[in-house]
């Protein structure tokens, strides 16, 4: 009897209750010490100063569908700069009557990205869907077939250009970075030193200088009469730049994999490519998901640097809108709008990476 009641007690003891109700929570989290109490009060003061004023500016006094002059009269936020210039900010110089084409292309891209984010759909058919989608998007942007009017690539601008540079920049840079990381670990001295020189050189220069080189210096070396599309050159510069950073992150992941995994794979008779593809890379890449996504996010934002070689990406079309005298002085509103677009891109990348980490968790 005594024994059983004792064991009952031992099993059923609950943790001691240390907080009760709202007051308990407040005390534990906001006023646990003098320093914390001061911090709480200072924070509350600033929130009280900022939040109501911001809400008033952004929502109550704001104008949504007026002219610039009417905005100035109203005094609040002038969201009209976004709504009235939306099509220019998003599509830039793409011919006005054909702007449905980049819109459809972007929708195709989003659908494909959404499908690809679910690992259950990673089948051959998805690969074909991408091929078809890429062809479709190219056709929509370029035109010249099936009765679509031809559009010069110099007219590609705004959000489609930003997406083009970043989506293809990142998807091409990732495998290239992995190849460079493997090359840097290679036992063949020529390959190894080539990869080291490449990585260290690229990491040693700013992206801006690479972009300048690709747009100003590179054409000088080409024979007369041959030109390479400006967008393509920027795209290549972004890929080369991002790949060098990814290579170093992946190398870190490779170093985290113990000797035993290599030996187990080798002792089975797997050759180098099988060993890397099936055993080492899946583990190494999983480990480095957080820093890799960090690089992809910053590369996505860095695509806005193409303004300096005269490409009209999302940031540049917004700036052009701001230089219109009718809309001068409303830069905050316009920048908030594109900040939201960039944020949506970055945030979906980082939440996807967190989901991927959860899905790939294997209890170790």
């Amino acid at each position, binding site marked *: 009897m005594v024994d059983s009641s004792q064991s009952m007690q031992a099993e059923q003891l609950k943790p001691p209750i240390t907080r009760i109700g709202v007051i308990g929570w407040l005390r534990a989290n906001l006023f646990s010490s003098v320093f914390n109490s001061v911090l709480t009060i200072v924070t509350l003061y600033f929130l009280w100063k900022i939040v109501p004023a911001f809400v008033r500016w952004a929502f109550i006094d704001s104008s949504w569908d007026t002219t610039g002059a009417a905005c100035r009269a109203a005094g609040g936020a002038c969201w009209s700069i976004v709504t009235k210039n939306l099509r220019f900010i998003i599509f830039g110089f793409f011919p006005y009557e054909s702007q449905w084409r980049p819109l459809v292309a972007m929708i195709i891209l989003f659908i494909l990205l959404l499908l690809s984010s679910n690992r259950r759909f990673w089948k051959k058919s998805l690969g074909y869907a991408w091929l078809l989608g890429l062809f479709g998007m190219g056709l929509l942007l370029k035109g010249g077939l099936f009765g679509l009017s031809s559009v010069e690539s110099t007219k590609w601008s705004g959000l489609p250009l930003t997406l083009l540079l970043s989506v293809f920049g990142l998807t091409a840079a990732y495998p290239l970075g992995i190849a460079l990381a493997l090359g840097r670990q290679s036992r063949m001295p020529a390959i190894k030193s080539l990869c080291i020189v490449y990585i260290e050189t690229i990491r040693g220069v700013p992206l801006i200088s690479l972009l300048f080189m690709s747009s100003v210096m590179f054409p000088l070396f080409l024979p007369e009469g041959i030109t390479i599309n400006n967008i393509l050159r920027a795209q290549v510069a972004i890929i080369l730049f991002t790949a060098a950073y990814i290579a170093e992150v992946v190398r870190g992941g490779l170093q985290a994999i113990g000797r035993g995994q290599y030996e187990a794979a080798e002792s*089975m008779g797997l050759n180098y490519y099988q060993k890397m593809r099936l*055993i080492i890379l899946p583990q190494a890449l999983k480990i480095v998901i957080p820093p890799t996504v960090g690089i992809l996010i910053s590369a996505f934002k860095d695509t806005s640097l193409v303004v300096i070689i005269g490409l009209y990406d999302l940031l540049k079309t917004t700036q052009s809108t701001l230089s219109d005298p009718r809309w001068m002085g409303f830069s905050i509103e316009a920048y908030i709008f594109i900040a939201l677009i960039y944020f949506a891109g970055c945030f979906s990348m980082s939440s996807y990476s967190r989901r991927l980490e959860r899905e790939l968790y294997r209890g170790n």
Partner: protein
Amino acid sequence: MDNELQKNGDDRSPGEPIIEITEMHKWFGDFHVLKNINLTVHKGERIIICGPSGSGKSTLIRCINRLEEHQKGRIIVDGIELTNDLKNIEKIREEVGMVFQHFNLFPHLSILENLTLGPVWVRKVPKAEAEETAMYYLEKVHIAEQALKYPGQLSGGQQQRVAIARSLCMRPKVMLFDEPTSALDPEMIKEVLDVMIDLAREGMTMIVVSHEMGFAKSAAHRVLFMDEGEILEENIPVEFFENPQHERTKLFLSQILH
């Protein structure tokens, strides 16, 4: 059980040689780890290698499947000489299974995937057939119900049994065991040894680096004692334990048996 296996050990009717090592030397830098190793292993033979740490016993069996490279002498496995030829190395590795001290399962793959990977990619066995074989061997190491789990969810003893099953799935001609029980908690050693004894009973050729003297007595044909890179003594288990010849063997045995 002891008797049956011991009998095998006694009447030693060796099959044809499957591993022949002649005058093999190995250096790590300037350090002479293996000195003039001569060893012939016959089909169906089970050999235990023991010796103090740093004596080169692990290095010796790692040379047999080229996880370590020897610098002098010859190693012939199943009629193929180990050279720098990658094709030969891969061919030998297909025929030689290895079980490691730290299991080295692939943590990102399920138990079943760990077992089918080699057969599917190296032996080009169809996936369904490889899974059938995998389940057969998992059954054999008494762990079939864990097939869909991941290595990180299993205990050390279970992981080592999976590792043994993984090697068996390649249907190897020789199995190498590199201190298979030394990383295990004491209560898990027996479950792994039992699996190894089952394997011995089926006539698998085994080379085991281990200090498990019980296993050596009941399952081995020969015990090798190594010290400072040399094979100092070699005998059938009974003689080895009861009548060691070399001073260093006596010292070693007195240390591990007490």
